[in-house]
């Protein structure tokens, strides 16, 4: 029996004037998947993730997150998700603790809980040793870790990450990966974009590739279920991806090796749970 998708799009399109950035994307991400959204630069990955998180309005199409229509109930959807957007969305003139506490309260946590989770997350992310340092003074890797901490402080069921490992050193990347894998193990769904196949291969249970094709090409016609025109999506289980996903092939979506964990809600912020 197919599980109800955590993320679902139908005919998702976005135009910027004459430019069609995303055209007719249909997507179904099942609960518990670590979903890698792969594609070359300019293919529309960031545009898609912005639409999925309410940062950008689609020109047409429908988005449902956890079965809720994003357009009709944006606040309800945002309550359930965490986002690390392209620019990280940090407030540079706050300290890490202040920013995380602020983020927690914006996501509906009470003051004390927000402060506690902020402290735990800073500790886990190894950012707790300089509490008076402003975010603007953080290194790029530290900012990425802080952005991820802010995205998970309220224990989201779905996490959207736009190029989370870009410009991050190996040590910081290790911390980020362990947190993400911990979230998956607890039943959360992660949607990650990257243009680096290696990262997606290592982390993700499912992969989709978005890429532009010149006009309404034969590729679109060969992949009618996943792409209507200039964009093609190929979705498959990570391990079989390399073998099966040659150009023009559409692979049916499979559940990943991580079984969906629908019984409980992922709660971020507890050090013990991340370790």
């Amino acid at each position, binding site marked *: 029996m197919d599980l109800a998708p955590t993320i679902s799009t139908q005919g998702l399109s976005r135009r910027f004037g004459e430019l069609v950035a995303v055209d007719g994307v249909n997507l179904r991400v099942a609960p518990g998947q670590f979903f890698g959204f792969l594609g070359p630069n300019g293919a529309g990955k960031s545009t898609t993730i912005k639409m999925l*998180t*309410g*940062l*950008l*309005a689609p020109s047409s199409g429908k988005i449902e997150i956890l079965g809720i229509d994003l357009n009709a109930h*944006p*606040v*309800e*959807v*945002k*309550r359930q998700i965490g*986002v690390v*957007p*392209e*620019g*990280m*969305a*940090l*407030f*540079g*003139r*706050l300290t890490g*603790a*202040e920013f995380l*506490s*602020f*983020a927690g*309260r*914006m*996501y*509906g*946590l*009470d*003051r*004390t809980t*927000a*402060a*506690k989770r*902020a*402290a735990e997350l*800073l500790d886990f992310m190894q950012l*707790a*040793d*300089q*509490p*008076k*340092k*402003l975010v*603007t*003074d*953080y*290194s790029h890797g530290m900012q990425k870790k802080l952005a991820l901490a*802010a995205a998970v402080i309220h224990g989201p069921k779905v996490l959207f990450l736009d190029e989370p490992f870009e410009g991050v050193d190996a040590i910081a990347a290790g911390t980020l990966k362990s947190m993400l894998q911990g979230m998956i193990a607890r039943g959360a769904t992660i949607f990650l974009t990257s243009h680096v196949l290696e990262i997606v291969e290592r982390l993700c249970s499912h992969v989709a590739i978005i890429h532009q094709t010149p006009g309404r090409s034969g590729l679109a016609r060969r992949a009618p279920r996943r792409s209507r025109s200039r964009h093609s999506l190929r979705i498959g289980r990570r391990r079989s991806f390399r073998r099966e996903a040659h150009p023009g092939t559409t692979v049916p979506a499979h559940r990943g090796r991580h079984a969906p964990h629908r019984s409980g809600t992922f709660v971020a912020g507890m050090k013990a749970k991340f370790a």
Partner: protein
Amino acid sequence: MTPTLHRRAQLSAIAELRWRMFVNGLRSKRGKMELVSRIIVTAAFSLGGLGGFAAATVSAWYFVSQGKAEFLAVVLWPIFFFWQVFPVMATAFTNNPDSGELLRFPLNYSSYFLIRLAYGFFDPASALGCVGVFGVLLGTTVARPALFPWALLVLLTFAIFNLVLMQTVFAWLERWLAQRRTREIMGVLFILFMLSFQLIGPMMERFDKKPRPELSRAAEIVTQLQAVLPPGLAASAIAQTSHAQFVSGLGSLLFLAAVTTAIGFLLNLRLRAQFRGENLSEAAARPTVAQAQGLQVGWNLSGFSQPVAAVFEKEVRYLARSGPMLLTLIMPVFMLLVFRLGGKGNALQHQPNFFGRVPDMVFPGAAAYALLVLTNLVFNSFGGDAAGVQFFFASPVHFRQIMLGKNLTHASILLANTALAWIAVSYFYGTPQLAVSIATVAGLLFATPLNFAAGNLLSIYSPKKRDFATFGRQNVSQMTVLASLGLQIVIVAIGVGVFAIAHLYQNLWIASVIFLGLAAISNPVYVIVLRRMDSIALQRRETLLAELCRA
């Protein structure tokens, strides 16, 4: 094969780049409106420039034709001050693109140096300064045509000096402003410097009414001192030559050239460091010391939701960490001091200034000024958030709550400033009448919601990224400048009208009643605009994010 680098080709490519950026900026409706606003502002500057040119020409002609060419210093000093101070004071009107971005290209150092000077040359202050210098040249030439070649040489050197000095000041300011702590110290020092200038006028008024021998001696020292400074040197070089003291004239010119070279050397130090790719990252400079961290529980605002309280706390923390912003916000009290000193000086001559004649209006005036200094914050609420604005869109919070949190901060600042102003007015001028105090508060109840409503809309429709830690380089939308000034003029006009009616009927309570009536209109307007914030922000989110998240 490695292509040969041609400096001329590179420079023309950069000129074309600037032109294309300007033209491409006009593609959007907002870009066109910015252009229209800029044209209006430029027209105002041009009028000022023409006035300055006429004044410089006539003055130079008069001094030289009267055989008092050394008095050219009287014209050259204002030109010098305008050229150097205006770009720092009014960066909204300046155009200094970041030449550092060009360093990725294989430019040689001399090209880079030239580009920096060229960027500075096209700054409005430089353009107007050159117009003034040209006026001096024209006036001198008309008065004594034989002086033309020499005056041209001297004034050209003077113009180069100003151009180089302006770039040197900017380059060194950049160096100090690159790091947060020094940036804030610089901001504080700058404002104190500006305040000291504002105090000079009233102080002079205060002291120059009676002949004082020590003042005359001081004036003599100042005159001698100015003669060895660049504007005085330029005037001396022309004057000495006009009096056939050619060697002295040449000496003054050489001294001026030497000063210019020395300033150029300082500029060279900075630009060379930039050219070599210096890294001014403050994160690297900070020692890594492990510090204990206690649990920081956020603030609570009774009666308001968690998100509103969180935004309020965040805004207050931002402001508290910005020395320049804090000092800007306490300007109303300093202005009261300035007016008081000026008023007292005039009073000695039985010619009190406006507030001396109408002391009732001091507190309303101070409150209006307190509202005015908030313009930067209220009309560009998201400027300081930069890329952080994405967080607001990603979080499950209604935009009206975010705006409410920000407006609460602004209102708190206004309240604090008004209270401080009341105390200062009481101290300097005597306690304001109860009717005046109530009328002023009623006036604020009318004006503040209007400001907030317009400010909230412009914050979304015309945002500009800004750095709270810098002063003098605030990037403000020209459209916002015009719109906010227009609104302030209307509000002040209404306020003056209401108080005039009250004075006419010799009953200041009338003003309170009228203001409360107006507040009954303006407050619902604010609420309506606030309620529409969610949909407006959603409609405008792309423009907002694109403007604030750009590098």
